[in-house]
C-alpha cells in the first residue's frame, strides 16, 4: 500500500523533472512550454492574490448547486425505479434514451429557455448529473440480494420499511459510486459551460488565459481544476468511509486478491527500491527541505535547485543504505535473526555484491547531480559532497568503519543534520551562515536518536558479535542517558534558537510532539528486551519525521507571513 503510493508518485515526478530539464536546457521553447517551476510560481501568485480561489469558489458553487438539484431527485427516482417495476417501466426508456446525449450539447437549448445567467449553467449540470445518477442508482438497487428483502419481510417489514431499511442501505455503495461518477462528470462539464458566456469561474479563468496567450496561467488553471477534482473525490471518499463502515472493513477470512504482478522490469525496480529502505528517505528529505525553507526565509529560493538537491541527497542516502547492507553482511553483524530492516541481503535473497553495485550506482548518480550543483552554487558544495560520500561509504566499510568504533551517532548527527541543512541552504543562498548551523541542531539530535534507538535495541547482540557502538561502550545505563540527552537536546536547542531570535516563534509548534518524546523515554527507561525496544526505533523515526515536518511547516508559515506583510 505504502510502497505503491510512493511508486505512484514516481512517474509524475519523473515526467515533471524531464519537462523542467528540457526547458531549463533550452530544448523546449519556454514561451510555449513554461517549465513546471514557473507554472507553480504562477499558481502560487494567483492563489495568494485570492483571484484563483474566487474563481474556484464560483465553479464549486455551481457544481454543488447542480449536484444537489440533479442528484437528490435522481437518487430518489433511481431507488423507486429499482424497487417498483411500474416506475421502472415508465421511467427507464426515457432515461436511457436521454442519457447518452452529451449534455454540453443541451447548453444552447438551456440558454434559450433560461437565459445566459447562473440558472442555465446550473441547470445544465443538474440535467447531466441527474441522468447519470438515476440509471446507476436504479441498477444498483436491482442488484441488491433479494434474500435481504425476504429476511426483512419475515420480520414484518412493510413496503415503506423495505425502502428505508433494505433498498436504501443495500444500494448505498452503488449510489456512492454513481455520485463519484457524477462528480467527475460535473467537473468536466463546468469547465465547458464556463468557456461559454461566463465572467467568472475556473473555466473562464482558463479561457481568459488562452485569450491572453498566458500559457503558464492556463496550466495553473488546469492544476487548480485537478486540485478541485482531487479535493472533491477525497471528500466523497471520506464521506463514504463514514457512511459505509461495513464496506471498508477488510475481511480477514476471505483471502485478499493477490497484488497484480507488474512487468519484470517494474518488479526489479520495486525490489531495489524496497531494499534501499525508502522509509529512511525522510532523514534526507527533512534536512534538505529545512535548509531550503530557511534560505527562502532569508530571501533566496529556486524550486529547480531544491528539487535537484532533494534527489541528489536521497540518492546518496540510498547509496549509503546499500553499502551499509553489504558491509554489515560481509562483516557478519547482520544475520537471519537480525530484527528490523538491516539484512536486506538475507531477507531479500539478493546476491551481496549486487547490493554493493547498486550502492555505487546511487553514489555516482547522486554525485553527478552534486557536480551540477557545484557548477551552479560554487565549490563549497563540492567539499560537502565529497565528505558526505566518504562518510556514507566508510560508515560501515573499511578497517576504520565509523559505525563499528562507536562513532555512528556522531557521524549521523553531523551529516544527516547540520551538514545537509547547511548544504541545502548554501545551494540556494551561495553563502554560509552560522545561525543555520544552530537551526539545524534539533534535526541532528533526532536523527542521531534514531540510530541510537537502533543500537539500544541491538545492545546485547552487538556485544556478542563485538560490534562497538556508543551504546555498547557506555553500557545500558549510560546508553539510556544518551537517549534522553538526544531527545531533550532536540527541544532545548530549538528553544535556544527561538529565544535568540534566530528562528521564528511559530517553529515552536513542534512541541506538539513532546508527548510522544516523553512516552519514548519512559519505554527506554523501563525495557531492555529487543522486542520491547523495537517500537522505540520505529517511533523515534516517526518522531523525527513529525518533528521535522512541523519544523518545516513553522518556517513555511513564517515565510508566508513575511511575504504578506
Amino acid at each position: 500500500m505504502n510502497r505503491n503510493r510512493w511508486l505512484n508518485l514516481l512517474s509524475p515526478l519523473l515526467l515533471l523533472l524531464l519537462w523542467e530539464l528540457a526547458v531549463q536546457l533550452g530544448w523546449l521553447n519556454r514561451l510555449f512550454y513554461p517549465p513546471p517551476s514557473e507554472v507553480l510560481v504562477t499558481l502560487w501568485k494567483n492563489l495568494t492574490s485570492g483571484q484563483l480561489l474566487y474563481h474556484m469558489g464560483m465553479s464549486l458553487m455551481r457544481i454543488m448547486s447542480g449536484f444537489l438539484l440533479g442528484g437528490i431527485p435522481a437518487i430518489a427516482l433511481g431507488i423507486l425505479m429499482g424497487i417498483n417495476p411500474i416506475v421502472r417501466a415508465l421511467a427507464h426508456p426515457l432515461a436511457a434514451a436521454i442519457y447518452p446525449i452529451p449534455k454540453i450539447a443541451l447548453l444552447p437549448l438551456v440558454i434559450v429557455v433560461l437565459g445566459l445567467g447562473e440558472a442555465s449553467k446550473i441547470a445544465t449540470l443538474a440535467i447531466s448529473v441527474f441522468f447519470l445518477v438515476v440509471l446507476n442508482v436504479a441498477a444498483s438497487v436491482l442488484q441488491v440480494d433479494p434474500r435481504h428483502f425476504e429476511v426483512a419481510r419475515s420480520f414484518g417489514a412493510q413496503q415503506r420499511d423495505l425502502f428505508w431499511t433494505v433498498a436504501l442501505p443495500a444500494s448505498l455503495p452503488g449510489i456512492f459510486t454513481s455520485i463519484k461518477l457524477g462528480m467527475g462528470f460535473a467537473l468536466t462539464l463546468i469547465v465547458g459551460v464556463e468557456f461559454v458566456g461566463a465572467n467568472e469561474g475556473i473555466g473562464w479563468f482558463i479561457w481568459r488565459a488562452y485569450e491572453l496567450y498566458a500559457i503558464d496561467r492556463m496550466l495553473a488553471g488546469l492544476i487548480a481544476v485537478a486540485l478541485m477534482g482531487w479535493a472533491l473525490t477525497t471528500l466523497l471518499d471520506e464521506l463514504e468511509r463514514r457512511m459505509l463502515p461495513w464496506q471498508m472493513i477488510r475481511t480477514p477470512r476471505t483471502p485478499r486478491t493477490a497484488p497484480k504482478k507488474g512487468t519484470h522490469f517494474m518488479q526489479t525496480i520495486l525490489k531495489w527500491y524496497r531494499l534501499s529502505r525508502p522509509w529512511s528517505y525522510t532523514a534526507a528529505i527533512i534536512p534538505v527541505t529545512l535548509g531550503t525553507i530557511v534560505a527562502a526565509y532569508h530571501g533566496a529560493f529556486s524550486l529547480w535547485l531544491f528539487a535537484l538537491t532533494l534527489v541528489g541527497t536521497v540518492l546518496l542516502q540510498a547509496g549509503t543504505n546499500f553499502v551499509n547492507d553489504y558491509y554489515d553482511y560481509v562483516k557478519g553483524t547482520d544475520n537471519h535473526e537480525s530484527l528490523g530492516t538491516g539484512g536486506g541481503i538475507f531477507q531479500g535473497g539478493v546476491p551481496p555484491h549486487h547490493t554493493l553495485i547498486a550502492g555505487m550506482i546511487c553514489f555516482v548518480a547522486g554525485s553527478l547531480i552534486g557536480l551540477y550543483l557545484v557548477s551552479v552554487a560554487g565549490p563549497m558544495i563540492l567539499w560537502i559532497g565529497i565528505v558526505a560520500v566518504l562518510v556514507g561509504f566508510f560508515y560501515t566499510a573499511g578497517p576504520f568503519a565509523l559505525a563499528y568504533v562507536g562513532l555512528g551517532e556522531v557521524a549521523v548527527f553531523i551529516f544527516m543534520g547540520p551538514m545537509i541543512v547547511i548544504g541545502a541552504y548554501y545551494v540556494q543562498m551561495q553563502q554560509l551562515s552560522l545561525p543555520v548551523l544552530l537551526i539545524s541542531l534539533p534535526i541532528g539530535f533526532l536523527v542521531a536518536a534514531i540510530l541510537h534507538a537502533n543500537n539500544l535495541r541491538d545492545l546485547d547482540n552487538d556485544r556478542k558479535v563485538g560490534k562497538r557502538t556508543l551504546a555498547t561502550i557506555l553500557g545500558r545505563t549510560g546508553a539510556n542517558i544518551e537517549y534522553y540527552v538526544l531527545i531533550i537536546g532536540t527541544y532545548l536547542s530549538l528553544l535556544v534558537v527561538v529565544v535568540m531570535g534566530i528562528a521564528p516563534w511559530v517553529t515552536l509548534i513542534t512541541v506538539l510532539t513532546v508527548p510522544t518524546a516523553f512516552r519514548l523515554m519512559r519505554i527506554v527507561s523501563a525495557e531492555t528486551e529487543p522486542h520491547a525496544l523495537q517500537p522505540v526505533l520505529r517511533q523515534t523515526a516517526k518522531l523525527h519525521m513529525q518533528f521535522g515536518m512541523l519544523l518545516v511547516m513553522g518556517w513555511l508559515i513564517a515565510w508566508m507571513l513575511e511575504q504578506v506583510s
Partner: protein
Amino acid sequence: MATITAEQLTMTYAGRNAHDPIMALDGISFRIAEGELVSIVGPSGCGKTTLLRILAGLEQPTRGHYQISQRDPNRPPVAMVFQQAGLFPWLTVIQNITYGLRLRGLAKAEQAALAQHWLAAMSLERFAHSYPVQLSGGMQQRVGLARAFAYNGEVLLMDEPFGALDAQTRLLLQQTLLETVAQTGQTLVLVTHSIEEALTLSDRVLMMSARPGRLIDELAVPFGRPRDAITLRTEPAFSALVAHIWGRLRAEIEQARQAELYAA
C-alpha cells in the same frame, strides 16, 4: 404458545413454459402441537424450504390453507432463522438483532435490554458492534439465532440453519439451540437435510417425498428432553433410527437424482 395446522397445502410454480407448471408441494397436511419441535427432512428440491416459506408468510400456497393459532396476539406469530444467517451486512451485530424489534416499534430501552440478553445468551457480547463480515460463519449464525429469539415469535422457523458450518461448530450450536428452546418453550419447525440433526433437535421427524413434495412418513423421536446433542449420538438407538429414516428416504433420494439427471 402456538399450534400449527396445515391442510392440503399445494404449491405450483409457472415452469419454463406456461403449459408445464412445476408442482413443488402436493397436498401437505399436518398438525404441530404447542411447544413441539418438528423437523422436516427429504431429498433436495422436495419443497421443504417452500413449505417453510409458506409458514413464514413469504409465499402464498396455490391451494390449501394453514393456521397458526396464537396464544398471545401481541407476539409475532413466527420468527425465522435463515440459511447462512441472512444477516444485513450494513448493520452491526446488535443492530441486526434489534432489527425486527425496531419494525415492531418497541421502545429503545426495551430493544437494548432484549439485545443485551440475547447477546449474552449467544456469547456475542464482545462482537456487539462488529459487522457481520468480521465474524466467522458460526458466529454469524449465532447472531441469526439471537435475532430470531429476540424477535420472540411464537413459532421458530429454521431453514437449514447450520448447513454451512463445520461439524464441531454445528454440534455446539445445536446444543445451544436445544437449551434455549427448552427455556423459551417455543414451537420449532426445522428444515434440514441432515437426518442426524433432525433426530437431535426434534420430537418428531416429518419425511417428504421427491418432487412434488408429499408427506410420506413421520417418526416420533423416542429421546426425551432435556437431551445432550453430543452424547445422544453415541446411543445405539440413535444410529438405528438414522438407518431407519435413511431407508425410508432412500428411494425418494434416488428418484430425485434420476429426475435431476433426466432434466440435465
